[in-house]
């Protein structure tokens, strides 16, 4: 398989994640879509790593996974605090700082 197929698959996964990020109401679903987008970026990193025949792209994927783990932990803690303070998981209810 050539690079273009993997890039198009990565693009499709990213766009599905981005659409979900926009249309989902539940804050945990929004985080799941965020993970999907990070994963799509990882796929294109690995595809380029294979294409250029070197391992440096895989190191970047490793670091992205670390950042995703830290982000998920902090984000879910914020979710729990939000639920404790507002008793809601709807992103539309947490718009105090939006306007």
């Amino acid at each position: 398989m050539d690079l273009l197929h993997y890039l198009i698959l990565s693009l499709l996964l990213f766009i599905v994640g981005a659409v979900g990020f926009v249309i989902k109401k539940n804050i945990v679903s929004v985080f799941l879509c965020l993970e999907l987008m990070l994963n799509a970026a990882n796929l294109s990193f690995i595809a380029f790593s294979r294409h250029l025949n070197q391992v440096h792209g895989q190191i970047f994927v490793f670091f992205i996974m670390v950042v995703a783990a830290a982000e998920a932990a902090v984000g879910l803690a914020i979710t729990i605090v939000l639920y404790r303070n507002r008793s809601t998981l709807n992103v539309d209810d947490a718009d105090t700082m939006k306007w």
Partner: protein
Amino acid sequence: MMETALFYIFGGIALLAAISMVAQKKVIYSAISLIICLCAVAALYLLLEAPFIAAVQIIVYAGAIMVLFLFVIMLLDPFSASILRDKRKFIAYAGVMLGILALALLIPFLRSYKPSLAPRNPDILSGVGTAGRVGQLLFNEYLLPFEMTSVLILVAIIGVVVLAKRRP
């Protein structure tokens, strides 16, 4: 030939699982769809000769991070079991339209890109990301960033404890 078939099978599974993740109403089904998608992408990593990253994807992503998500969903779900009602239906259609528009814009762009870059390293073994190879690069060339990620994890742990602790 085999590789092409495997690419289409696992790519199709990943894409369908991703679409199912967005389409599901309940968060727990979304999370399980995402786990399926991550496992299919790990299979694609194996096809791309990155076995170490594939293993890390299964263990860290589909294992640790998704278990964290499932814990939080279980923690919060009894209270949020009623599906959040969509007050503004048009947002969903607008989002799907946005996605189709982005695809229509980006796929011609990708097709016009000529990946004519010759492989920089013709040695066939150098592109295979075994644990040894990745580790060698990680602990020599990328040692400082690697050590800094440990600080990042520490900051994340402290942040989580401070955030989630109940104030007396």
